[in-house]
């Protein structure tokens, strides 16, 4: 069966510091991968998606970036965090044919 991991689970970072969140998927190959952000009391906003290694599409302009160095690894990064980057970050993998997406446990990021 497929499993998706995210770490860290919780992160508190000062403004201006760098960020690296990691997501890995097990039990499937060549998945579509997604990063979503959920601000407090809000719905989910798609940040990035990837259909293959090195292929990243950005949905919204911001100071975040994403990379996919391996088939089942998806990384969310920032060089300098802003207060507005605080939120709950969710990674998901998807089956291309059916659009079904499966979510990881999430990372709670607080920028102070």
């Amino acid at each position, binding site marked *: 069966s497929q499993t998706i991991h995210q770490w860290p689970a919780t992160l508190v970072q000062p403004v201006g510091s760098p960020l690296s969140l990691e997501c890995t998927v097990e039990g499937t190959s060549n998945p579509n991968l*997604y990063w979503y952000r959920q601000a407090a009391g809000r719905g989910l906003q798609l940040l990035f998606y990837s*259909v293959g290694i090195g292929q990243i599409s950005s949905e919204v302009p911001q100071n975040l970036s994403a990379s996919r160095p391996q088939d089942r690894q998806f990384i969310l990064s920032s060089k300098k965090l802003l207060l507005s980057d605080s939120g709950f970050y969710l990674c998901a993998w998807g089956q291309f044919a059916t*659009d*079904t997406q499966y979510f990881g*446990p999430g990372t709670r990021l607080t920028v102070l």
Partner: protein
Amino acid sequence: AQSVTQPDIHITVSEGASLELRCNYSYGATPYLFWYVQSPGQGLQLLLKYFSGDTLVQGIKGFEAEFKRSQSSFNLRKPSVHWSDAAEYFCAVGDMDTGRRALTFGSGTRLQVQP
């Protein structure tokens, strides 16, 4: 572009009562529709999905949803709510028209269950 509306931000029901959460979508063709549930501080868990065929879809935890094309709706129902159902529920529509294959989510409905 597709969109999803969940008109109820917050719903409170008594344990054992029936539940219906509303979802309306906007999409040009036959949509792929989903309901997810999120417990506090957790990721999203897929409850059920509709792709085609029977318009009444059964999911996990005793939930079902009915696709009504004429009303552009995909409402989630449960005949008898349990205290453990208290969570936030998200409706989503799949993007089949482009290569992004991403989901567009509604803003969610928070369910509170009274004893």
